[in-house]
């Protein structure tokens, strides 16, 4: 099936059955659940996670236990250079079955690396799972910091979670008070410029891609794209780690919304690419 969502074999709506995961993670906790299931059942022996360090700054790390995965869960809206630790994972961590999660651009980078493993000798064979996330755009760390500190008036060290939904960027504080909302249109000038030439919304090259769009609150949409992704998800469902429901192909917030957002991104960015070509600027496509 080829459409605006890239190639996929099936589409499901799912969430983790683990209460602790659901509590800590962004939506359905798919990535966290998949990682923990993989680590605990020998399908993976280590995973790349985007953890945060002081000042809510994303840093890529290598996790090998449930606790390490849980401490890193949740979406970060500024970039965590996950590809940068892939080689370390295979070398000094000596991992042989690595799980990887990334934004569409990182998944593309990973796939390119696997096709042309220049400087990644003996690395490509050790990647066992590639999970992609849905991504409209990203913010440089300093832009995110400015938004949170200057616009939302929250000290960056007090932030526990950020979330984008319903046209707003929500900033959750550690004290548990009501999140502060920033309208998305106010954040547009802070977006990373390279995101405006990206033609991939749903991580079209991952084994499976996931994100909240297209599902009810607390659930995630999962696009299963190949056999490896299907086998992994099937095993998780069989082991009772995921509960699923049928995707909504009709309703306004169902799959049509996912398709609409993907089309929007592609149309908007195709224009930007054209514009940049006109200006004589380099573009990746």
């Amino acid at each position, binding site marked *: 099936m080829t459409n605006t969502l890239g190639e996929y074999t099936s589409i499901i709506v799912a969430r983790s059955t683990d209460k602790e995961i659901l509590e800590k993670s962004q939506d359905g906790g798919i990535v966290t659940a998949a990682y923990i299931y993989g680590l605990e059942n020998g399908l993976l022996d280590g995973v790349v996670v985007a953890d945060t360090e002081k000042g809510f700054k994303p840093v890529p790390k290598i996790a*090998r236990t449930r606790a390490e995965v849980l401490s890193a869960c949740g979406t970060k809206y500024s970039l965590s250079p996950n590809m940068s630790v892939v*080689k370390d994972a295979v*070398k*000094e*961590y*000596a*991992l042989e079955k690595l799980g990887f999660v990334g934004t569409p651009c990182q998944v593309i980078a990973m796939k390119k690396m696997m096709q042309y493993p220049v400087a990644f*000798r*003996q690395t490509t064979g050790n990647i066992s799972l590639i999970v992609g996330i849905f991504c409209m755009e990203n913010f440089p760390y300093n832009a995110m910091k400015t938004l949170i500190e200057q616009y939302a008036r929250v000290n960056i060290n007090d932030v526990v979670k950020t979330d984008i939904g319903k046209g707003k960027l929500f900033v959750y504080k550690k004290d548990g008070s009501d999140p502060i909302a920033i309208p998305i249109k106010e954040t547009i000038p802070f977006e990373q410029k390279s995101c405006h030439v990206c033609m991939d919304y749903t991580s079209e090259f991952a084994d499976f891609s996931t994100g909240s769009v297209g599902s009810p609150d607390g659930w995630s949409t999962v696009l299963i794209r190949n056999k490896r992704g299907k086998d992994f998800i099937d095993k998780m469902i069989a082991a009772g780690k995921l509960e699923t429901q049928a995707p909504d192909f009709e309703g306004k917030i169902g799959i049509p919304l996912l398709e609409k957002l993907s089309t929007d991104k592609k149309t908007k960015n195709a224009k930007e690419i054209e514009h940049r070509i006109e200006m004589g600027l380099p573009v990746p496509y």
Partner: protein
Amino acid sequence: MSKTVEIKPTTRHEGHTNLVLTVDDEGIVESGAYHSVTPVRGFEKFLSGKVAEFAPIAVSRFCGVCPTAHSISSVEAIERACGMEPTKDGLILRELTSIGNKLHSHPLHQFLISPDYVPEADRAEVIKRVQEMRKIGQYFVDVIGGEAIHPPNVKIGGMAKNITPDAKNKLIDRAKNYLELAEIQCEYMLGLFNAGKLVDGTEIPEKLGYHDFPLVATSLTYGDSSKFDYSQVVELSPFEEYPKEVAIKACSNIPKYKGSLIEVGPRARMVTFENFKETKGAMGIHKARALEMKHYANRALTLLDELNTNGAPYSTAPVVGDGETLGVGAIEAARGHNVHTAVIGRDGRIVDYTAIVATTWNIPVIGRATVGYHYKFAEHVVRAYDPCISCATHMIAKDYDGNTVDEKVFQ
């Protein structure tokens, strides 16, 4: 009347060499000249003026078979030139990387000589085992060195990264596995070497490859620069060693230590440190090499046991020399004693750099060792030394007409 027999190129080793023999009417070798014809690359020249950190990365590219030995010799030489002390765990990791390279290189040689000695019926099994062993050796270099070929983690002051406890455990498992494979392989190969027969049934003469040159080694597994007196080294032009028509084509120097050619390599190590009895002859080198594989695996296990995975992998002392001190890095590569020297300036740049690599020492000895037996055995003498030529290449200055301008300056 003596005739000339030329074997060019010699085969089943790394690099390009020719063997020029003069033989009598019976075909018995009267004199042998083994020389490198691998083109000169000029590493020692282009390194001068570059920052010291570039040297281990560059010299690793001497060759893809033992890049590890060169980068480690290089960092050892630079550390001594700068008066730096590598960290304890850095040294352990470095020795492990060096051993990893030898764990792969020794079985590789047994693969190369398998058409000579291993009966056809056993060959597939032997080669399969060889590949298993090489995989483990390369895994060591890959995990600790960061890449199996041209390991980037070899760093002045230690190693760039330590490994995780999980990686350490995996390496211990593999070293044990290697030890098991090495026991089988060693026993099998020793059987063949003791029988002293080629696959076609030809008996190898007992005294094939005998020579009277001393054996030099500084350590069984790693290298010890303090045991090597660099002031006793002279490098001669190939014209001093070979007949003129051979020397004109030769691309390597003739180094002498304490006034003599020397043999380096597995046998030199085993004789110096393990009381190995066969001090002469080509087959002795094969046997020493087979026995060494077990020593390496055992040493790797000891080192892994000593390694503190939380220890600092490298020293943060500045890489600055005084422009005068000559640092000598003597490392036992798979093929023997490998020496790099460096002088580092006050600005951290290379003032002078030289390399006398393992096979350079052996090249003139190999030619001499072919004397006294039929020329059909000569290639087996060559192969016993496992020559790896590309790193041994040096330069001689010539003008456009091919006339030698300077025979004495080689760097």
